[in-house]
């Protein structure tokens, strides 16, 4: 108390000061920084941070929105599961409107499928416990932030010996796609704004390889405008590439070791397909042998058939940071948040949705 509103930490005065600092340290250089977290994508557009940047600095979005990077074939499997008459499909709200090859969960629900939006995987466990007559399938998406919570819910389901609860794990891990992007070498990236809440679990050490092996720096950032700008100042000021933490309020170099143990007790790494990046070895999480009885893909045999990408959708290039959303011919014309064609326009964290919603102006 007693501090004027505008000069509080993170307030407008600090934001202005950081923007000035960024101008000084970047000294007119042309630098491209990539964020790889949907919440950062949204924050950058919402707070209009691009308008505060010096001219040479460009911000691009990477594969950081879990809904957006989910492969079409996996979305088709989710829809096919929802169509089974005995199944109650529970998932996070983000997934409900995402177009699969031929439908969405929302459309299936309108036609009678039992699709429930839950806020936590524990709600799905609870649903299974109260509805023994239904097979509750939780469609799990998300990175390391979310996977431990889903693992904890599966442990809860196991403890309660629920036989009508299962999980379709579409979880993915974050360091792998950054490696894949750098290996592709098609996007010139001078540094990464690293995901804050993924790093709460993984720790910043999980990203050290960026500097060590690729010579690209990274700063783990929080989600306020001042956090993002402070991360950019630190990236621009780096003389030697390094991985550092700006979001010290919540992130430690070693992360949450216990959460990672729970995650690796319940899940094991698998190859996973990413929209825009293809199959990345070891970047997915499927149920470990001891928990296989909770794997929805084994309990139900569904054949989603061949998958189809929407014509003209350039989501894949957006996710690799190759183009800004307005470059896509569908953006804002045939593809809008009300009538989305691609996944990046559906999720509020998708780069296209963030650009559209806040009428973000690129460079």
């Amino acid at each position: 108390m007693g501090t004027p509103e505008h000069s509080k930490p993170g307030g407008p005065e600090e934001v202005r000061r950081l923007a000035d600092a960024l101008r000084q340290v970047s000294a007119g250089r042309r630098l491209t920084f990539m964020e790889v977290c949907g919440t950062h994508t949204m924050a950058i557009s919402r707070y209009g941070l691009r308008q505060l940047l010096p001219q040479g600095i460009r911000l691009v979005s990477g594969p950081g929105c879990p809904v957006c990077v989910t492969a079409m074939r996996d979305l088709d499997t989710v829809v096919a599961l929802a169509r089974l008459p005995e199944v109650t499909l529970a998932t996070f709200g983000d997934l409900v409107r995402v177009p699969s090859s031929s439908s969405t969960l929302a459309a299936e629900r309108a036609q009678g499928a039992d699709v429930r939006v839950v806020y936590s995987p524990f709600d799905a466990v609870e649903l299974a416990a109260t509805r023994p007559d239904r097979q509750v399938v939780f469609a799990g998406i998300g990175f390391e932030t979310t996977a431990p919570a889903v693992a904890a819910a599966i442990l809860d389901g196991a403890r309660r010996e629920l036989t009508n609860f299962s999980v379709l794990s579409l979880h993915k891990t974050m360091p792998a796609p950054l490696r894949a992007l750098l290996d592709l070498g098609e996007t010139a990236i001078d540094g990464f704004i690293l995901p804050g809440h993924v790093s709460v679990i993984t720790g910043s050490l999980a990203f050290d390889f960026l500097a060590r092996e690729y010579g690209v720096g990274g700063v783990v950032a929080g989600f306020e405008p001042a956090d993002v700008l402070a991360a950019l100042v630190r990236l621009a000021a780096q003389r030697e590439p390094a991985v550092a933490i700006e979001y010290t309020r919540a992130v430690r170099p070693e992360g949450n070791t216990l959460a990672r143990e729970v995650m690796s007790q319940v899940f094991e790494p698998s190859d996973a397909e990413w929209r825009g990046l293809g199959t990345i070895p070891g970047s997915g999480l499927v149920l470990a042998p001891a928990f296989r009885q909770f794997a929805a893909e084994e309990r139900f045999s569904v054949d989603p058939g061949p998958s189809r990408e929407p014509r003209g959708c350039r989501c894949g290039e957006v996710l690799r940071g190759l183009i800004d959303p307005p470059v896509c011919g569908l953006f804002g014309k045939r593809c809008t948040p009300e009538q989305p064609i691609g996944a990046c326009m559906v999720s509020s964290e998708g780069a296209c949705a963030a650009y559209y919603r806040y009428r973000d102006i690129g460079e």
Partner: protein
Amino acid sequence: MCLAIPMRVAAIEDQMATIESQGLTQRVSLLLVPDARVGDYVLVHAGCAIAVLGEQEATETLDLLREVLAFEDREEAGEFEDHGDS
């Protein structure tokens, strides 16, 4: 998706915390942060506490979250409606 919100632990029973935030209470698993104590602020995501925060750090984040929420409320009320073509 990866949004996590600081909340204060009001009570603990069997690794489940009762959490209060903005006048609402909810139950949250402490499996991933067993060291959390009553009165601590924890970062909550998908029904799980994933980190314990210092009080000052938590309230700073909460202040900023409130600003964001206030912005969203006004936005929903149409105050920032943009009718121009983009």
